[in-house]
């Protein structure tokens, strides 16, 4: 087979909160989970390496605090990484580390090459601005200037995520949780990014609403052939969406593989506990 190039490659991404000390900055550090008992530094992500390929959905599971959101926020430049490299095929053919780019370059990557959907819609949307202007905001940030085009594109997206057009001028705060997630998805897609990051996007929604949002995600992936990283602590979500799955614990990747393999033949003790619901 032709050697497949990942669309996104993360190498040894680490993110720590705190400066570290002589206890925790040595190879065999004594940590409590991801936490240094001596200096209180949190090692939220440690040496995380990921390849994401075009058109695939990569799942990330792990317990609360395992570093999933930190990883997503680091990728989206909401947080600055402590160390590590990231390469995007669509950014200088993957020849430049995205984490060491200028603020302007990072904004370009974030707005044009990535889309983010947060668990908490308040992080992704201006709740009291109209939905259509929320969507247009990302298009403007990605360089769109033509108002007519932006309105057309926003309406097309709202239609795609099943928000009635007659409600496009309403602010997200008027909407149900499921609708807010739909607006976030529309916004994230508005600049046609090749990669979408989704962090617990169905958590806290009613089951039937969850199902419709998951269905929307699957449909988008199929129709747009977009690559996605889907973070969830819910294995049912991962089973339904992800081709491959990564398991995180205490900031590190402990197991990865085909989703059905992870779920039916988990190798690591922690993954077994997760899958057999022993936690």
């Amino acid at each position, binding site marked *: *087979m032709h050697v*497949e190039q990942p669309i996104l490659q993360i190498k040894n991404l680490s993110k720590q909160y705190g400066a570290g000390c002589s206890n925790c900055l040595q190879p065999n550090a004594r940590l409590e989970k991801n936490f240094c008992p001596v200096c209180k530094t949190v090692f939220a992500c440690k040496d995380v390496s990921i390849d994401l*390929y075009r058109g*695939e959905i990569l799942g990330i599971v792990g317990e609360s605090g395992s570093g999933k959101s930190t990883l997503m926020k680091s990728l989206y430049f909401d947080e600055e990484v402590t160390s590590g490299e990231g390469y995007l095929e669509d950014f200088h053919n993957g020849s430049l580390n995205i984490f060491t780019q200028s603020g302007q370059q990072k904004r370009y990557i974030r707005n044009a090459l990535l889309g983010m959907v947060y668990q908490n819609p308040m992080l992704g949307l201006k709740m009291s601005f109209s939905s259509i202007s929320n969507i247009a905001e990302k298009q403007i940030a990605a360089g769109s200037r033509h108002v007519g085009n932006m309105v057309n594109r926003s309406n097309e997206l709202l239609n795609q995520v099943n928000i009635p057009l007659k409600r496009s001028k309403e602010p997200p705060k008027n909407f149900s949780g499921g609708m807010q997630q739909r607006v976030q998805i529309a916004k994230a897609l508005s600049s046609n990014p090749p990669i979408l990051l989704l962090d617990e996007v169905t958590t806290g929604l009613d089951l039937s609403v969850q*199902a*419709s949002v*998951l*269905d929307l995600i*699957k449909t988008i992936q*199929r129709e747009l052939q977009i690559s996605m990283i889907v973070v969830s602590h819910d294995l049912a979500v991962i089973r*339904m969406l992800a*081709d*491959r799955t990564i398991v995180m614990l205490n900031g590190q990747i402990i197991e*990865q*593989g*085909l989703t*059905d*393999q992870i779920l*039916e*033949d988990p*190798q*690591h*003790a922690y993954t*077994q*506990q997760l899958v057999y619901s*022993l936690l």
Partner: protein
Amino acid sequence: MIQIENLQKEFTIHHLNKTLHAVRDISFTVEKGSFLGIVGKSGSGKSTILKSIYGTYIPKSGAIYYDSETLGKINLVTASPREILHLRKYEIGYVSQFLSVMPRTTALELVEQALLETGVSYEKAHEEAIDTLKHFDLDESLWNNYPNYFSGGEKLRLNIARAVVKKPRLLLLDEPTASLDNASKLKVRESIEKLKHQGTTLIGIFHDLEFMDGLCDEVFTMRKAVVNAYEA
């Protein structure tokens, strides 16, 4: 087409500190275009073999060589997840007794999608999906319904239709006819014969020896791995 050499599979349950030997030292070969039937008592490791070929289980040791049309000869035990996904998409099908459905996806869409992901046009996918559903006598009134509400037999026929529509080079069948009535079984048999005719290689597990009669070129009998019990 498939060459299995000294395949061993263990399941280790860490929190019980126990290991189960599910498959011990199995070797066999399946020629291109032939049908190998696997029989054996419940728990003898039949499904484990199929799932090891399909990449769902990670064998402990041994090799599974597969002659891929697109990847050349490849050892499925050491193939990367991306390679396995590629093979599942274009070459290897798997049918079990269970249908996994997507919410809000109709029976027709489910079969269409199987083809769409391989890159065929919507028109062609639509046409072939309808042909296949017709072949399996899935009532036309069900095509645009959600399979969650189908009867066991309807689900099974849909499940097989979805795999067969892609005309896989290698088809793995894990008791897909377990709860079918005779008429449906006959349909499945017919369609397996048709696939065989088209050159598909098949490995199938069937309870029903009568069903396998005349269909299989060879039958492989599994004996329970000498020690098939969790060992501390």
